[in-house]
């Protein structure tokens, strides 16, 4: 059977709108994607990302609003830093940092959400299971 990666996307409440619009328009994306909604991407913590991998995620994404357009000022910039720092930890422990990625969206870009979902699923499928 083909490897089906487990992927979690931590998504700020505004970018979740993009996902839901994609849903309302029946724009398909892989069922591998599971959304965790956060109020702001700045809520993301290193521990959530690591725990997601521990619990079986093969890939993890964080999606926040476009830079400069965070509803909470700089939450998305903090998220970017947290993702980068966590990528360093992943490298330290020998996990490909490509398994963790941050994207920026606006709440209107449902197409882009779908595209990101497909892209990341393909990427992780290529990388294979994490363990």
């Amino acid at each position, binding site marked *: 059977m083909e490897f089906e990666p487990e992927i979690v996307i931590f998504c700020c409440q505004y970018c979740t709108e993009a996902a839901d619009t994609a849903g309302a328009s029946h724009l398909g994306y892989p069922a591998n994607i599971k959304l965790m909604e956060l109020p702001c991407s700045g809520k993301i913590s290193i521990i959530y990302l690591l725990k997601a*991998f*521990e619990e079986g995620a093969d890939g993890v994404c964080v999606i926040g609003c476009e830079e400069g357009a965070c509803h909470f000022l700089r939450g998305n910039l903090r998220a970017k830093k947290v993702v980068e720092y966590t990528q360093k930890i992943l490298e*330290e*422990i020998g996990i490909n940092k490509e398994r963790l990625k941050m994207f920026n969206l606006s709440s209107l870009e449902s197409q882009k959400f779908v595209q990101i979902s497909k892209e990341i699923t393909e990427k992780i499928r290529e990388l294979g299971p*994490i363990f």
Partner: protein
Amino acid sequence: MIIAERKPIKEIEKMIMPYKKVLIVGCNTCVTICMAGGEKEVDILASSLNLLFKSKHKEIEFIKRVVERQCEKEFVEELKEDIASVEAVLSLGCGVGVQKIVEVFPHIPVYPGLNTKSIGAPEEEGVWKEKCVACGDCILDKTGGICPIARCSKKLLNGPCGGSQDGKCEIDKNLDCAWQLIYDRLKLLGKLDQLEEIIPVRDWSKANDGGPREVIREDVRLKNGK
């Protein structure tokens, strides 16, 4: 406060490799504040190690605790039960914390998870800088409140070296020249004449060079007091 930083995970891995059950102990004081050894970092380290060992098909069980101050016996003693159930301890306290655990629990191996870096202060969000090296004979009164021993790369006592340029240190252009800072501060205070006073050669025996130091308050001390 004490500033510390997590050791590379590979280094930590080697220390705890032989064990099956390890207690990770953080400290809720200095190292929490400098984001090296509080509850959050204990969780992150445990999770990182879990992932690391998972990829190597090995399993170590972690117990996670944070004590109020790892440098105090009374707080460390609270770990008694946990320590009884593990094979080793990984301390996310400063060097003092590690040694306190060793003193209280001499029979269990205790490993340092942090590198203790300095006595310093937060400079901006996420940046901590060294301010004092605990030399044992403070001269801040003579240097405009800025320490040349901790902050001048050459620990010069009587003015800058020839390399001080545009306020930056010749050893590292990212460092402010301590002597420039001292000059500026004394100028601000209108006390530049203080610089004419020569600071004599220091008695380094008062620093750690003279061996471990001890501070005694006779009014409080009873046990061995006369």
